[in-house]
């Protein structure tokens, strides 16, 4: 490990982690882009420095996405969409500093647990991931969609409406299964569907600006009047009280991250839903619940570690970042795949060490990022909102170098603004947009595979577990209220 503590590794490492904070906190700039930029530079350096840069930037970016989500309700990356719920709610209650302190420590813990599982159980988890096929992914997506009820913040019917809208929007484009174009109106820009990131920037970023413009009185005040007081002691007491939530969410995050068909965004939602269902304070979710902050942020960093499992074990990328990393490893003469663990044990170990140390370095870098963001937010709200608008346009454009995505962003800014005036929650819409295609593609592909039979969906072992969980999750509130009625009847 000592060979990692050299200036020529540490300096680019920290610089990239600071870059990760910037990239993650800026909607429209993604960790994938940052890694694609870094990889060519990293060939100029020893392999460990290059790997440290890539691993550093990908973990910090996922954390940093929570900063604007908490303060401004604008998720910096799709994996931070869940932080717009309880994290932002805490911020509105003046506890934004605590929410972000929880975020930074739980991200680090989630990452540590994720990397720990990667080190100890990578081959086993990879073998488990192999048992997931279309049938299993279908149930996983359905379980995820049921969370739209959880994240509806009380407005169940409106939440389901938003989820349905999200699914509808997700059908646009060239279908992977059918190979036909749907709702593209001959526009080649629509062929790959609506980009998740432009939609998200519009829904959360631009609509937030519009809301601020309508309530004009705020614009001349500081965006964050109370400043960002970080409360480390309270944060650690809370984390200790909710330690099981951290562990549970990190394990779920790692496993979901290891599935090639799912990533950090789904992991965050999955952990949020699980925490809500198993928490004694489930009803306070969406109203600034501490566990609602802890669960997704632990899970998304763990998922980044999880994505390395199929990459290292099979040589198959678990997400876009690991796809680029695999290309880089080949250039370093490291052949990822089944033989890596035997032939290149030293290299694998240094990847693990870098990943572990990154989780520790994340804390000072993250705190620096939170401080810097807090300083920016002392500016007048009008100035901040102008900045958000500029970054929204630039961010939407940079994803594909496409002006079309900027129009998409504007359109969804208006849609988001309108839906909020009608009290329709936006989180289920994002959930529908992410999970709609997963649900549909896996369902239809599964049916092609089974020649139209539904029985594999019900009888395969993992499917069985998944759908029974789903039935229990859906039935439990009904049964619970029924049981409570009987108890109260009995006592009177």
């Amino acid at each position: 490990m000592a060979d990692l503590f050299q200036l020529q590794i540490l300096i680019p490492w920290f610089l990239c982690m600071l870059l990760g904070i910037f990239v993650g906190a800026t909607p429209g700039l993604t960790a994938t882009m940052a890694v694609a930029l870094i990889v060519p530079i990293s060939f100029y350096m020893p392999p460990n420095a290059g790997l440290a840069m890539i691993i550093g930037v990908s973990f910090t970016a996922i954390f940093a996405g929570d900063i604007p989500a908490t303060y401004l309700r604008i998720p910096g990356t799709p994996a931070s969409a869940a932080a717009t719920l309880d994290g932002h709610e805490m911020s509105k209650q003046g506890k934004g500093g605590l929410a972000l302190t929880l975020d930074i420590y739980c991200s680090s813990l989630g990452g540590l647990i994720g990397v720990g599982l990667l080190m100890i159980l990578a081959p086993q988890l990879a073998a488990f991931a192999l048992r997931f096929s279309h049938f299993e992914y279908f149930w996983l997506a359905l379980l995820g969609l049921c969370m739209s009820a959880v994240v509806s913040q009380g407005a169940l019917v409106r939440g389901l409406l938003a989820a349905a809208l999200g699914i509808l929007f997700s059908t646009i484009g060239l279908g992977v299964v059918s190979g036909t174009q749907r709702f593209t109106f001959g526009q080649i820009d629509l062929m790959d569907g609506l980009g998740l990131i432009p939609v998200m920037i519009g829904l959360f970023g631009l609509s937030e600006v519009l809301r601020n413009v309508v309530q004009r009185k705020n614009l001349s005040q500081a965006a964050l009047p109370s400043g960002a007081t970080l409360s480390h002691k309270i944060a650690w007491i809370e984390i200790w009280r909710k330690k099981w939530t951290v562990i549970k969410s990190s394990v779920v995050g790692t496993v979901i991250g290891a599935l090639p068909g799912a990533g950090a965004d789904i992991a965050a939602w999955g952990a949020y839903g699980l925490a809500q269902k198993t928490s004694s304070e489930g009803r306070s979710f969406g109203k600034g619940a501490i566990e609602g902050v802890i669960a997704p942020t632990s899970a998304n960093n763990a998922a980044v570690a999880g994505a390395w499992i199929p990459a290292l074990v099979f040589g198959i990328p678990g997400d876009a970042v690991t796809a680029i990393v695999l290309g880089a490893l080949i250039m370093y003469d490291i052949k990822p795949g089944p033989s890596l663990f035997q032939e290149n044990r030293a290299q694998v170990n240094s990847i693990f060490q870098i990943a572990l140390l990154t989780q520790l370095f994340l804390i000072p870098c993250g705190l620096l990022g939170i401080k810097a963001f807090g300083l920016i937010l002392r500016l007048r709200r009008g100035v901040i909102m102008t900045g958000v608008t500029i970054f929204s346009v630039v961010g939407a454009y940079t994803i594909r170098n496409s002006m079309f995505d900027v129009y998409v962003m504007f359109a969804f800014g208006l849609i988001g603004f309108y839906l909020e005036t009608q009290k329709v929650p936006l989180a289920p819409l994002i959930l529908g947009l992410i999970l709609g295609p997963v649900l549909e593609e896996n369902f239809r592909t599964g049916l092609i595979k089974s020649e139209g039979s539904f029985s594999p969906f019900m009888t395969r072992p993992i499917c069985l577990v998944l759908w029974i969980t789903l039935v229990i999750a859906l039935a439990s509130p009904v049964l619970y209220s029924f049981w409570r009625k009987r108890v109260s009847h009995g006592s009177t």
Partner: protein
Amino acid sequence: MLIRFVGNRGDLSCCASQRRAPERGSVTRSIFETSTNRIGLQQANSNLMRQFLSLCIVISVAAWSGCSPQNGGAYPSKTVTVICPWAPGGGTDRLSRIFADLLRDQYGSQGSPFVVQNRTGGSGAVGHSAGALAAPDGYTITMITSELNTMHWMGITDLTCRDFQPVIQINADAGAIMVGKDSPLKTINDYLDYVRKNPGKTTLTGTATGGAWDLARAGMLLAAGLPVDAVRWIPSKGAAPSIVELLGGHVDAICCSVPEVAPQLESGELRALAVMADERLAEFPDIPTCKESGINWSAVGWRGLAVPKNTPPEIVKSLEEKALAIAESERFKQFMKKNGFAIAIRKTAEFTTFLDEQDEQWKTVVEAAGYAK
């Protein structure tokens, strides 16, 4: 302004680093260094920060000074955009980036940068259209790919290879049929016999419905005298999820290009029954071709450079010459070898005929497979 700004960075950073570092390794130049060069470059690491700082200064000076006199006449006198129709990090992107870098070196005297721009979307249609519709002045080059031969037959776009002026073909990766290591099927004829006896029972995956390798398997079945629906095509998002499906035993076989499965083939997890190439591959000489097994079929995913139609012939000629020189260079060969990409060079004239032939081949397959619009 932006163009000049980038142009200046190229000029000046090169001079700045030449003064200081003997190996001429400016930050921009060393993009995609191969490992042989890296050993030498490691010594320069202590210089990196200084170089980086000087680069920063150079960029800001260049930005402030604004304009530099344009080299009148000589191509290229400003930034050349290389459009990559596929996402960052993929094979086409990696190839585009190294080629852009090598082209810049070839035109070293002018020092104009070649900048890769990823224009993704529409299954490749967005990037290809942007490349074909650009001004025919040689300042927009496109890394065209085999989808150009198929997508117009399927009604995705009106764009064809005739909207481009081909420059050079760089690479061609053959498709192959892979099975798991424990599969009882040993040869491609075993496989096809099995398919013949159990029509519609076996599953095959590799790309989306109507994607390159879906069409390739349809062509193979037709060449073997089987109906296109003799095998059930399981749509997927690409090679990576398909390999997982095969390793997990959820499908019987996969069809995709050889470099995409090279790690699994080398480790023995997967076994290739046949490649869809005219000759055996240099990297995998043990895999028989479809042709030697009696199936007259080959399918390659190719990549090459093209410029918009009506680009001045002297620019096309110049690009062709430089690209041919690159193809001979050690750095290019090393890059291709490491990535498992097969080098397949066709000069402008041959590339043009090749594109026309491919267009005809895929027309037949797309129609027979029922995807024609």
